[in-house]
């Protein structure tokens, strides 16, 4: 151990001397050196720098190997679909069980290839000991808290895989800026319906009434420029947007003119500065459309999405799903409306259940411990 540390120290000393040499102010005589001489001097130092870097890396490898040997950490490497998982010793069965369930249920149907997944590695049960395992590209620990119930752990695995998959779209600017949320997060039909139904937008209301072109507009598809704002919101709604938002400073005259003097042209001017920000339906709702497109596309859908990632969102969705935009929007709207919550669903049945329990506890009262009078 002392020998390796000495080697490491020598390597760092050499590196430091090279850096200092370059930083030492040049003497008057050196100032007269030509550019070619300076370049030659730098080139002559390069082998020293390379040697120092190699020494430093060797020292780090030796140190890592020493720590690994001491920790005696055994691991198993699993392959589940496109996922590569390094599991701690004794946890591989559990890892395979959970990861296979998640992959089969949520990803296998349409993720056939993914550069992000293929270059990533997950760990299971290693926790902080990941640094002892040679996993330079390790992405995430899948089993963060062991004592959580299984559904919560599956949720974490699902989220971790979705986060890595989203990197495939990192450079797909049109699509990424449109969807902005992962399509693999759980779809909550009641929550989504409430969000849509309470959005103050005329386009959304028309969409709920059945106008598919309004659904496209509300989702930020097929509409560009200033016309988008006019199709999304009525005059009163645009004014309300300005009042509710943080546009302009508190003392901004334009804001006051819009809100109090009802100057709709001023309101439009404030909103038009970044009209995409006012798309009625948020990223989570748009991601549900992408999710539907992937489900409709079936096997290979994710690969087709990567092929079409540079296109406009509406074209990409059509390419992924194999459906034209109207058919896809129709399916999406049907799913949305089907998710409408019944505020007091099954109240009749639940009332009978409550009555059953009331009578149950009343019966217990009749059969309780015997009263005694002192």
């Amino acid at each position: 151990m002392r020998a390796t540390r000495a080697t490491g120290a020598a390597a760092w000393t050499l590196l430091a001397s090279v850096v200092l040499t370059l930083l030492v102010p040049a003497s008057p005589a050196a100032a007269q050196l030509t550019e070619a001489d300076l370049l030659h001097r730098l080139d002559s130092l390069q082998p020293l720098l390379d040697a120092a870097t190699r020494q430093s890396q060797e020292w780090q490898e030796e140190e890592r190997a020493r720590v690994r040997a001491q920790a005696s950490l055994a691991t198993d490497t699993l392959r589940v679909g496109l996922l590569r998982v390094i599991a701690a010793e004794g946890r591989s069965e559990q890892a395979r069980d959970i990861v296979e369930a998640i992959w089969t249920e949520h990803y296998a149907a349409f993720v056939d290839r993914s550069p992000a997944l293929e270059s990533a590695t997950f760990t299971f049960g290693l926790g902080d000991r990941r640094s002892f395992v040679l996993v330079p590209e390790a992405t995430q620990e899948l089993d963060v808290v062991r004592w959580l119930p299984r559904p919560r752990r599956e949720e974490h695995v699902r989220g971790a895989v979705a986060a890595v998959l989203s990197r495939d779209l990192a450079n797909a600017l049109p699509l990424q800026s449109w969807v902005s949320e992962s399509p693999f997060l759980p779809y909550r039909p009641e929550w989504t319906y409430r969000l849509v139904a309470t959005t103050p937008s005329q386009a959304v209301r028309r969409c709920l009434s059945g106008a598919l072109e309004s659904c496209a507009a509300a989702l930020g598809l097929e509409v560009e420029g200033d016309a988008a704002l006019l199709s999304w919101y009525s005059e009163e709604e645009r004014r309300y947007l300005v009042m509710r938002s943080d546009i302009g400073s508190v003392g901004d005259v334009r804001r006051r003119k819009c809100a109090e003097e009802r100057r709709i042209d001023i309101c439009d001017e404030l909103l038009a500065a970044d009209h995409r920000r006012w798309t009625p339906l948020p990223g989570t709702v748009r991601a549900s459309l992408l999710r539907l497109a992937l489900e409709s596309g079936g096997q290979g859908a994710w690969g087709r999405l990567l092929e079409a990632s540079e296109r406009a969102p509406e074209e990409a969705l059509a390419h992924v799903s194999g459906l034209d935009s109207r058919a896809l929007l129709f399916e999406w709207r049907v799913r949305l409306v089907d998710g409408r919550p019944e505020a007091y669903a099954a109240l009749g049945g639940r009332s009978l259940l409550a009555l059953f329990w009331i009578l149950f506890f009343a019966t217990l009262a009749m059969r309780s411990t015997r009263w005694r009078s002192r």
Partner: protein
Amino acid sequence: MYQPMLYLHWKQIRVGLIPFVIASFGLPLMAIDGVGAPPGADGTMLGAYHFIASVQPWLIFFPVLAGAIGAMLALSAWNWDHRHDHVYALSLPVTRWEYVTLKMGAGASLATLPAAALWLGAHMAAASITLPVGLHAYPNQLALRFLLAILLSYAVLFAMAAGTIRTTLWVVSIAAGLVVFGAVATDLLGGFYDLFDRTNVVLVALQWLTRAPGPFEVFTGNWSLIDV
């Protein structure tokens, strides 16, 4: 026999019930107080999202109030019996189960008072505002759930209060022990049995109790007066 039991319970509780009846009437009105379209706005859709969001913080008070009313009715039902060692009950020419049934019925009748107050308050609240498009009021459903929650809370504590203090302590201790020590025991057993490693017993028990067909589902359901 029912009327004297009802009168006795009413006499016991009439003063204490007044603030709960007022609270039941006022809670729906307080929940929608200040909610609506912003000044000068004509469109009733404008505040729908914020309407729902503004009402949400009040929803927890409905089941809490129902539980408190039920508890008060149950404890007051047995107060005099415990104080006088059940002499009155034991001296009556009725069987135990008949006595308990009459007492339970009397308390359940009194439970309709705060429920009726809430029903009235909910209708007044719904009538006093213009609902945004897409939202609906559910005053009848809310009042029914409120009544069931009161009755369930009443029944549970009525059963516990019908026994001795020792019985009550046993029940409460078991429940507390499950919550406090169940998690520790699950973690310990998880090292030996795969079932406990895969399942959080305490969480499963709580989920069963608070969701259908468990007994306390009525408390954890939807308490919205206004919804889509």
